[in-house]
């Protein structure tokens, strides 16, 4: 396609695209984001293309390869539109059946249908799958209609309509006013009002301004930014152009972590296309406004998710944060006023402009507007990305959408906000999820990771895990964070090894408060949250480790012992063969016994036992 010259031209293109879509045949959509690819979605894509060709079905159906649909548990997903027939865990060998049965003969392939685990009913249509039905997918929903490498697909779903409205109907101040009115808050975790930030940046002194998209999604267990960049990069680019227009910036950066190769590739393709079509660069859509975006690749440092560290990294330096007496909206990248927002914040912008601030502010709670995206992972039946209106209770997310805990285990806690967040216990399951409520509960929104834990997760071990992570990722610039986290880690390790004394818990609490109060940047200030929240809600568990030298969840190796249940062991020898330490003895068909002095508690025997006779005490 040629360069889009004006607003009218873009509308003309959209009209033609929609007309073509109306008259069009059915469309097979295959989810092929990173999780899909891990499960060989690319082979499925190939097989479907081959099969379409083989049966000459090209006039009946088109094929669209999209990013992640969000239901990673059952990826790769194939959905046939407009009907919405939903096939899950599709393999390359299923392609023939999909084409010959469903496309050519309108029959459903039963074995590929999703089975509702609670009712055991087979579900045919996407809209009836409980995981999707209970969500409100304003941002993620378009992933399934868009091939991220095709700008036309994005235009067909109202893409760049908001940009036109802004460029030709609104003054920059009006855009800022609209965003302020919508109540949109930064989705990176801290929840600062986006409109206010834009306004400060616009008003800051200086001739050059920058806008930055933070896609350095370092929180372990969170991957929604990746999914959006991989699946619908133009929604973020459009948001950034609108923001740049409002702020008065002509250069932008998208900072992506290097661990996300597909996101980088798709963003690069999208930027090139936008430039080619005249949506980026000089004189966008003949409006007189100039703006372009570059990609900056992260180097794998968690601290670079912090705004000042990220900017240092774009400048080609070590990603060390600085004190923010002077805000980055005044002096950021190369000391120029810089407005940084998270991927999801930018993606919300076109939605607000298209539908109006009033519409947006009706979604969510009083202070947290719009939807939130969470990655529901860990000990949960339906792993995936969940988008819900702010204020949805945790219980609804975990049980109604997530399908509860696997293997009839008991729910113990949910960890939100990554290493900066905390663990929320069962008694708070009815907590409505928004910025304030999570903070009150001692956790935070963070980038939206939601890691579900069951009775077999040790909360002291969780605290140790996060401290270990943070000790490694602390940049070392300020003392409280660099040394404080290490000392906290030493104490928690002592607890997990049964070497700690009662008074250590007090010292741990004191250290945690110190690190929180005196660290330089957000990493250190929030680093004690995992410790403080587990101390607050799971003090008994700490007590069990310290006083009784026991790990109730059976995780901390120095405090547990493996043993074999007499009445369950059949003497099959499965454990004996696999034990790397030869710590298991027993005659065939007779009770086996574990020698605790030789056992290294690796758990291989328990995984191997077909009779669940190996236990931990």
């Amino acid at each position: 396609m040629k360069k889009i010259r004006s607003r009218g031209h873009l509308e003309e293109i959209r009209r033609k695209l929609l007309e073509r879509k109306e008259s069009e045949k059915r469309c097979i959509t295959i989810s092929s984001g990173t999780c899909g690819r891990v499960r060989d979605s690319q082979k499925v894509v190939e097989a479907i293309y081959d099969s379409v060709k083989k049966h000459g079905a090209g006039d009946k159906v088109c094929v669209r390869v999209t990013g992640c649909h969000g239901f990673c548990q059952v990826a790769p997903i194939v959905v046939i539109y407009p009907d919405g027939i939903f096939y899950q865990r599709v393999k390359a060998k299923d392609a023939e059946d999909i084409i010959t049965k469903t496309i050519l003969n309108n029959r459903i392939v039963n074995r590929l249908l999703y089975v509702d685990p609670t009712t055991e009913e087979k579900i045919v249509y996407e809209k009836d799958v409980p995981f999707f039905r209970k969500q409100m997918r304003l941002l993620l929903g378009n992933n399934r209609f868009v091939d991220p490498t095709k700008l036309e697909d994005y235009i067909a779903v109202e893409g760049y309509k908001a940009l036109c409205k802004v460029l030709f109907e609104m003054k920059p101040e009006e855009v800022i006013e609209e965003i302020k009115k919508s109540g949109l808050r930064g989705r990176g975790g801290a929840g600062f009002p986006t409109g206010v930030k834009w306004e400060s940046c616009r008003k800051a002194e200086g001739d050059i301004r920058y806008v930055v998209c933070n896609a350095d999604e370092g929180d372990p267990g969170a991957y929604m930014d990746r999914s959006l960049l991989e699946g619908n990069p133009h929604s973020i680019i459009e948001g950034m152009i609108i923001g740049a227009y409002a702020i008065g910036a002509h250069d932008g950066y998208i900072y992506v972590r290097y661990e996300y190769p597909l996101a980088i590739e798709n963003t690069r393709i999208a930027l090139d296309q936008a430039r080619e079509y005249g949506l980026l660069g000089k004189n966008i859509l003949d409006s007189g406004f100039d703006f372009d975006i570059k990609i900056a690749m992260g180097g794998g440092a968690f601290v670079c998710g912090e705004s000042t560290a990220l900017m240092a990294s774009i400048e080609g330096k070590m990603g060390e944060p600085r004190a923010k007496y002077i805000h980055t909206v005044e002096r950021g990248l190369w000391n120029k006023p810089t407005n940084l927002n998270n991927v999801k914040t930018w993606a919300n912008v076109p939605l607000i402009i298209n539908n109006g601030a009033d519409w947006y502010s009706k979604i969510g709670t009083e202070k947290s507007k719009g939807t939130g995206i969470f990655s529901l992972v860990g000990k949960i039946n339906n792993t995936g990305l969940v988008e819900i209106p702010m204020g949805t209770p945790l219980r609804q997310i975990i049980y109604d959408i997530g399908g509860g805990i696997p293997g009839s285990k008991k729910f113990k806690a949910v960890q939100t906000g990554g290493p900066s967040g905390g663990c929320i216990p069962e008694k708070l399951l009815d907590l409505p999820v928004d910025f304030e409520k999570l903070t009150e509960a001692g956790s935070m929104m963070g980038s939206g990771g939601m890691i579900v834990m069951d009775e077999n997760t040790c909360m002291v071990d969780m605290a140790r895990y996060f401290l270990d992570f943070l000790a490694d990722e602390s940049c070392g610039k300020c003392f409280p964070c660099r040394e404080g986290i290490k000392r906290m880690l030493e104490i928690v390790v002592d607890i997990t090894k049964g070497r700690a004394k009662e008074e250590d818990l007090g010292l741990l609490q004191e250290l945690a408060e110190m690190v929180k109060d005196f660290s330089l940047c957000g990493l250190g200030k929030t680093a004690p949250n995992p410790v403080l929240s587990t101390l607050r809600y799971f003090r008994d568990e700490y007590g069990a480790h310290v006083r009784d030298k026991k790990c109730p969840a059976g995780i901390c190796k120095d405090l547990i012992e493996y043993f074999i249940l007499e009445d369950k062991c059949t003497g099959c020898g499965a454990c004996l063969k696999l034990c790397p330490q030869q710590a298991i003895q027993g005659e065939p068909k007779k009770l086996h016994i574990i020698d605790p002095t030789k056992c290294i508690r690796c758990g291989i025997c328990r995984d191997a036992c077909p009779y669940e006779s190996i236990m931990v005490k």
Partner: protein
Amino acid sequence: MARRVMWNLAESVPQYSKIDKIIESYSCEELALIAILQEIENLYGYLPAWALRHVSEKLSVPMTQVYGVASFYDAFHLTPRGKNLIRVCLGTACHVRGGQRVIEELERKLNMEVGETAKDLSFTLERVNCLGCCALGPIVMIDENYYGHMSPAKVGSLIKRFQ
């Protein structure tokens, strides 16, 4: 990203022209330091000392800054890495599903600690913080391939394929 590692060239003769090409593709800009180092890392699997010195000279950036950046980011390595790179995900989701036990079994089977490279450069064992494939945890990634739902018992047969 394709890991076109010329691992057998580790510590070999400096190839200045190759580095020059990379630097020139970024118009010799100082702000592209991280991107340039990333390309060199992709080429050799680590950052050889001679390459760092060359980058420092070409970009007129002090060696202290180049070394600072090279040692700060996890993406960079200052020593050669193994032919096969084993990365074990220890994101929170993988951790609660037993990723730590998988690492420990790999350490035992390969007789090396996490973060180490075997003397014969056959393997490097690393932990990563999150690969973003939480539905499949615990995840092990060997070179370009992902192996989901790992357990200590599956480790042995997995690494045999690469030995």
